[in-house]
């Protein structure tokens, strides 16, 4: 368990993290979503003690905090952060990197081959990392953390540079780790994927963490409360507003119009479908606000 208490990180006049207090539990997958430079990585660096907060403290499992160098070592025995692909040793093989992490965290050496197989790295893992593509390096970095097998894993932009197949493979491994009771904290821009697997997703606003459920009630529940319409004409929007004033409309920069239903009644859904079809709107979907939508909404990217 991680307890973040009143963490503030300030650079000159800018408060990157502003009095953040929150708890993360084992077995949870936490998503951190925000535009660049808003504090995702800073928060992770504070959790790892790579960065000293201006005020506040982070404690683990109740009472263990970064109060001394020896505590830092004890914490790092069960907390790890995925390495950055640009920091790999180009003259060493992928397998050497995996061995290095398995040795440092004294994890089961069998994990190395299991992870190589699970991530389909067998054809390149024995070559020097200097010859790897971006995606191969990213998979290796992910594999390194999986091999470390710590109780708390933090990953910054883990899906960067990966094709959809590999994203799916990594997601499955993450779910498996979560099922093993590990806490996984992911900062990512690949919002669809995060939405699918994360238990809780947080956005950053003015240095504060904001739970997505606080922005849109029941965001994490599977209820149809939104109709997403692509390229909706203005005349249809006006007509809809006139006929259904209780339905709130929001158009995003992606030309996606969100129709927020006050409730998910079958009658209302049926009527709305009929209305859209009658007005030649064919590209729409029922569901809930996606994380992509929420991201656009929250960071004011609304037309």
């Amino acid at each position, binding site marked *: 368990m991680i307890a973040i208490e009143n963490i503030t990180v300030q650079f000159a006049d800018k408060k990157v993290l502003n009095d953040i207090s929150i708890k993360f539990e084992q077995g949870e997958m936490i998503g951190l979503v925000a535009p660049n430079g808003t504090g995702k990585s800073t928060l992770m660096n504070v959790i*790892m003690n*790579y960065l*000293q907060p201006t005020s506040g403290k982070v404690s683990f499992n109740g009472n263990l905090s*970064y*109060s*001394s*160098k*020896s505590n830092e*070592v*004890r914490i*790092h*025995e069960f*907390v*790890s*952060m*995925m*390495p*950055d692909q640009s*920091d*790999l*040793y180009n*003259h*060493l093989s992928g397998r*050497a*990197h995996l061995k*290095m992490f398995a*040795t*440092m*965290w*004294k994890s089961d050496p069998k994990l190395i081959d299991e992870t190589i197989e699970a991530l389909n790295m067998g054809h390149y893992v024995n070559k020097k990392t200097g010859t790897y593509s971006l995606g191969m390096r990213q998979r290796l970095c992910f594999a*390194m953390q999986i091999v470390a097998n710590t109780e708390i894993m933090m990953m910054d932009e883990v899906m960067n540079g990966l094709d959809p197949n590999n994203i799916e493979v990594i997601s499955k491994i993450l779910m498996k780790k979560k099922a093993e009771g590990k806490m996984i904290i992911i900062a990512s821009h690949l919002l669809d994927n995060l939405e699918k697997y994360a238990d809780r997703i947080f956005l950053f606003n003015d240095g504060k963490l904001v739970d997505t459920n606080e922005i849109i009630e029941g965001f994490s529940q599977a209820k149809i409360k939104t109709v997403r319409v692509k390229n909706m004409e203005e005349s249809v929007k006006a007509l809809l507003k006139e006929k259904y004033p209780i339905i709130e409309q929001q158009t995003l920069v992606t030309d996606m119009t969100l129709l927020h239903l006050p409730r998910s009644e079958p009658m209302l859904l049926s009527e709305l479908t009929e209305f859209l079809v009658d007005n030649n709107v064919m590209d729409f979907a029922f569901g809930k606000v996606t994380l992509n939508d929420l991201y656009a909404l929250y960071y004011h990217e609304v037309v």
Partner: protein
Amino acid sequence: MYGYFKFELKQFFTNKKNLAIYFLLAFAALFYAFKIAPAYDPIEKVDREEIEARYLTRQEFIDDLSKRNLREIHPTSVRAYYDFADINPLDKARMDALDANDLKKYAEVTSDWYIQMNYLTFYNENLFYNDRYYVADREFANVEGALNAMDQHFRYGAFNEANYELSIGVFEQRTALQTFERLLKGPLPLILIICTLLLAIDIVTKDRRHPSVLKGFPIADWKKLLMKIGVAFIGSIALFVPLLIGFMIIGAQSGFGHLKLPSPEYALNFMQIGNESLANMMTLGMFLGRSLSLLIVWFIVIINVVVLCSVLFRQEMVNLAVGLFVIFGEKFYMNRGIGYFWEVEKVPTTYIHVGKVVSSYQNYFLGSENVDYQLGLLLLSICAVVLLVIALLISLNKRFKLVK
């Protein structure tokens, strides 16, 4: 922790810069073994023709003067007549021993010959040592000649009591072990210490190229520093591997020598001719053991200097500058006879010329009785410990980050 050690060790021995150092050293060792060592031409060598030429010239002079009335001859000629009469039987005995291949006998009479010749030459401004001592810029050629003569006197004295096989190569110090001895009294310690500096220079700072890989390792910074020091130390010891190649080649060419061979330890008043208590005779094994122990402590000092500078400044160029300052620090004060005025024996950098310190040549050069191998070992060990303790104390600070 062992895993981290192995990881550091692997990095060290796959580092291109380090491999280049080992390769260059191996190349230098090969070049030395094949080109320089065979061409070694000592001033004091076993040369029957030279002995015979000198002997015949003197004998002719003696024969000539013995037929004349000495009262009618210039006093210097008379003196030469008596001196030559003393020395020539020794030269004759040396030639006879060489003809009979009786090297033990040769050693016995040559030891006497050197003491006799030195006695005659050093106090006589009309006589000189071998011409090759008198070269440009050698201000103290006469003293060097006397020193070498005494060195030879003591060595041949020890050869006379040898219970191992003697050879001309042993007399001329051409064997592999004796070559190593000569090199330790020359530039080899400096070369190896500089190599150690270059090997260790990035042992800490290289980590900044891989921060996110290394920062989270669950190992305390002070332990990481100790592991790095250990790895750099092993790397510096590995410098002897390329040298070993050269050693084996020289051994195959000129013999390996013997650890019981003599190696004189000079005293300050070494050249008070005839006073044999003024030199202690070490075995070559003892000389090498002492030199290597001093050299190894130097390796540790230099590695600790680099580690401390890395912790404080995090710049390889600073490591290089400070390391070179330590290595060449003695240049700022070193002068012949300076030990008479200043207590240079209390400055650790005085002990950089490892072989010269162990043989006590530095005593003679500095005019100090106190530049002692054991004192050097103690001072350098204290330096190494102090540097290490400071670096470790800094690394124990809560705000310190080894990798940023």
